[in-house]
Structure formats: C-alpha cells, structure tokens
C-alpha cells in the first residue's frame, strides 16, 4: 500500500495547525490520517477535468448589509469571559519573545 502521508508531514501539519503532538500521537495520527486519505483515493479514478468545483450548495454572490449602526455585544459581557484583559483590551503574553 502506498503511504499517503509520512510521519514528517504529520509533524509539519501539526505545526501549521498550532498543535503539539507527542511521539505516540505522531505514530497513531500518521496511520489514522493515512487510512482516511486511502479511502479518499477512490476519487483518483474519477475524471473531473471538465467539472466546475462547488464550494457551496447555493449560488451566492457577495452579501452586503446596509451600512447602518446595529446593536452590538455588551462589552462587559465580552470581557467577562476573556482570559485576561487590561484597560478594555485583551492582554496577551509577549509576542516578540524568544521561541523555544
């Protein structure tokens, strides 16, 4: 059987998705993702060269709303569930710190 996705690719994808995987997780995810991609291989046999792709079930154009003020969220309620705030802003750890 062709190996659809390598352990290195899984590690790379995890980094892109901002997930950190243990060695065991890398092993199990590599084989599980491989199994799903194997199943998806049935699409390879299909010739769809002349078929238009559909990203959506209904025809949509840009949907714009009238530029009118509407009621927004209560700022207190929004900050109540924020991990950390300071002076009506979300507080985060250093963004330019040394990456390990």
């Amino acid at each position, binding site marked *: 059987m062709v190996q659809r*996705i390598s352990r290195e*690719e*899984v590690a790379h*994808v*995890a980094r*892109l*998705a*901002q*997930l*950190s*995987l243990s060695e065991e*997780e890398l092993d199990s*995810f590599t084989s*599980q*993702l491989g*199994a*799903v*991609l194997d*199943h*998806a*291989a*049935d*699409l390879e046999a*299909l010739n*769809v060269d002349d*078929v*238009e*792709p*559909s*990203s*959506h*079930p*209904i025809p*949509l154009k840009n*949907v714009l*709303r009238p530029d009118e003020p509407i009621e927004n*969220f*209560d700022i207190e*309620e*929004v900050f*109540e*569930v*924020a*991990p*950390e705030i300071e002076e009506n802003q*979300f507080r*985060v*750890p*250093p*963004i*330019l*710190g*040394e*990456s*390990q």
Partner: protein
Amino acid sequence: MKAVEIAKKVASGELTARSVVEQHLENIKNLETEVNAFNIVTTEKALEDADQIDARIASGETLGPLAGVPIAVKDNLCTRGLETTCSSKILEGWKPPYNATVIDKLKRADAILIGKTNCDEFAMGSSTENSAFGPTRNPHNLELVPGGSSGGSAAAVAAGFSPLALGSDTGGSIRQPAALCGVVGVKPTYGRVSRYGLVAFASSLDQIGPFAKTVSDAALTLEIISGYDPRDSTSISENSPEITKVLDEGIEGMRIGVIEELSGKGLDGISEDVLLRVEEATKVFSKAGAIVEPASVPASIYGLSAYYVIAPAEASSNLARYDGIRFGPRTEAATTAETMTATRTKGFGDEVKRRIMLGTYALSAGYYDAYYGKSQKVRTLIMNDFAKAYEKFDILISPTAPTTAFPLGEKTTDPMQMYLQDVCTIPSNLAGHPAMSVPFGLGKDGMPIGVQILAPALAEQNMFRAARVLELGNGEISE
C-alpha cells in the same frame, strides 16, 4: 405527550407550564445519571420561565405556538449568559454574549429551554463518544451509543427528558442519532434556518434542525426556527415553509425513488435488517398511492470521500479562532505563539485534532488540487446526479444509517469505521438538500431503525408528507 398537545393544553389552562416542566425534570432526575444526555440542565430558569408563562396565560394573554413546551438544545448553540461548550475543554466555562437566532425564535414561540445537550466535540463524530464530558448512552440500551454528533439531543427526546430538541447536521449529525434512538430528526434545506450563533464546524454544510417523537412536532418546530436572517449571509430569503398545513395531504401519485447506490447490498457494512425496513417502507408508500421505483445517484458513493476532505478543510479554518486569546480558557506560556499552541493542544480532543490536521493537509501547498479541489468537483457531480434523479422523482429514500446502534468503544480506535456511519446522510449535506430520518421498525437486536427521506432544495413539504405516511405505517407494523 406530543409538543403540539402540550402547547394546546397549556394555552387552554388544562395544564400549567410548571407541571409540564416538573414532569420532564422528574424524568431527567430518574434517568440522566445513566444516559448523560445533558451538559447542563437549566432547572431553575426553566421553572421560572414556566411560571412566567402561566402568569401570562392567567392574565388572558395569547401565547406562542410552543407555549410551555420544554426544548433541549445542542451545546454548540450559543445561549447568552449560559455556558456553551461544544463538549470541548477549549470552551469550558465560556458564556456567549449573545443568543443564536434559533434560541430567540424559540423564546418568541414561548418554548422553555430545559438544558444544553451533550455532543461529539465540535459536532465531530457519529457516537457522542468524542465528548470531553463523557459519552451519552442510548436510552433504549445503555451499552450502546446514541449516534452522533447530536446524540444528547436524540437521547433526550427518546428518554422523555424533553418533547423537542435541536441539533446540528453537517454530515448526518441529526439524522443518524435520530435513527439510532428511534426519533424523528430533520436536516432542513441549507439556508432555511439561520446559522447565526451555531458554533461553526463546516460552514458550507452545517444546518440546524429539530428532533421530535412525531413528524408533526418536528414540522411545527421547523416552521418556527426557519426564516431569513440578515445576520447569516447564507440565509435564504424564502419564508418559513408551511408544513403542518400539508402534513396529512397524503402521497397519491407522488414519485418516490429508492437510491440504489445507498440501498444495495454492494454498500460496505450495511445490515440486512436495515435494508429490509427500507423495502417495507416502499410497500407502505405504494399502498398509499405513490409510484415507487429504483433511482440512481451514481456519484453519491463518492460523497464520503469528498466530505472527509471538505468538512475537515473548512473545520481547520473555522477552528483557528480557538487560541486562548479572546475567550475561553488559556494555557499560559512564555510567548503568545506558544500560548496558542499550548491552549489548543490541551483544549482539543483527538478527533478534533485529527480533523484539523486532515483539513490543514488537504489545503496545503502541493495537495490542494489533489484533495480539496477534486472534492469540490465531486460535490458538483453529486449535485448534478441529484438534479437528474429529481427530474424523475419528487423525493428519494434510503437507509439513514447502515446499522442499528453499536456498542460504546467499538469504533473509537478506528476513525474510518466511524466515518462510514455517515455514508447515506452525507450526500444531502454536500448538495444542500433537506433530508430527514423517520423511525420505521426495529432490527433483530430490538433497536430502532430509521428510513431516510430526501428531497430537492426547498421541498420540505413533500418530504414531510411522505414522512407522515411512513409514521402511520410504522404504527401498523409495530402493532
């Protein structure tokens, strides 16, 4: 009791809303420890709301069509000030600052929210085992799963915890648990029901819909939650469908196709009992005057593969927002980037991680055309094949799920086996069409089987008329 009867009796003063809520809370008290259908039961608020409804009736007010009717909603629907977790640790304790549109609509209809139901984390799964708060069990047999991802909603209705529930259906997450728990479950036409306040999984596929014990209760609930909403840009401008009016019109002359590709023995892992029930359903339809013939939707067999590329791809993008910066719990680390990674790694369960990675991979440079691009083209093929089938037929039928409910733990280590549960339900999501599951008899194991009724976009009326005929037929076979 049926939701429509409760509403009628509450409105006429024959029953108090309080007694209705108390009765359902009693059922919850007796069985919830075993079933685990809820993430939260809103006991006090529900009783408060019931008292308010009773007071309004006493003062002579005319109430909405769901006056005093309890409803349970899946925990991926935002409820202002009330914890909304998607059964994920990454949203534990999060209280949305707004209501989903469907919640406001239910409130306007004077329904009473009785709790938030358990589900597979972020609606990803077919058994409700992927919940950070423990699995839900099937009320008909506690060793078996209720299906998923809206397993808590299906179980809540089946167990008598609530006459109505809402779920969400991205690849079958309303219909499959409805089938496994022996209740009615409806996925409406894409765009019928506003997705505003539904926590997004795969935006081009997600749709909210009702669970109920009866077809007429499901119809009424769908009418109430449907309608254009400017806050959902994919909401369609059609008015709510008038379904309850046409429910009993029968199906004389209706052309019904049995989807061969999804009802044949060639399909992997489909059980004999299920196929037998679909065959019996065709007899019920023929007897009611419909013209029943085999139908072909050739590309439907590629639905599963296309779905497990498209849905994870959309999920990987939608779930990028969970990073511990603006809401939800944060796992603090030295830098913002490390904080995000630590928060996501700790907060997401395995299935969510798998799908995020699968989607990220399918969208990444070098693989985009082979997976995502191709799957989108397959989506077009499926739409085209449905369109061709609907030239000859008014509605189509197939099994809802390939099997009856399976034991807990049976498929958790083999994601692909779990995904196969959705093989018959996925095509409708890809096409944006309505489809519903109606309980129809039992399997050899005594567990419920559902027959799926599919219709073209916006044809909910025909779909429900056929569902009503099947419901009456089901009464006959089980007598």
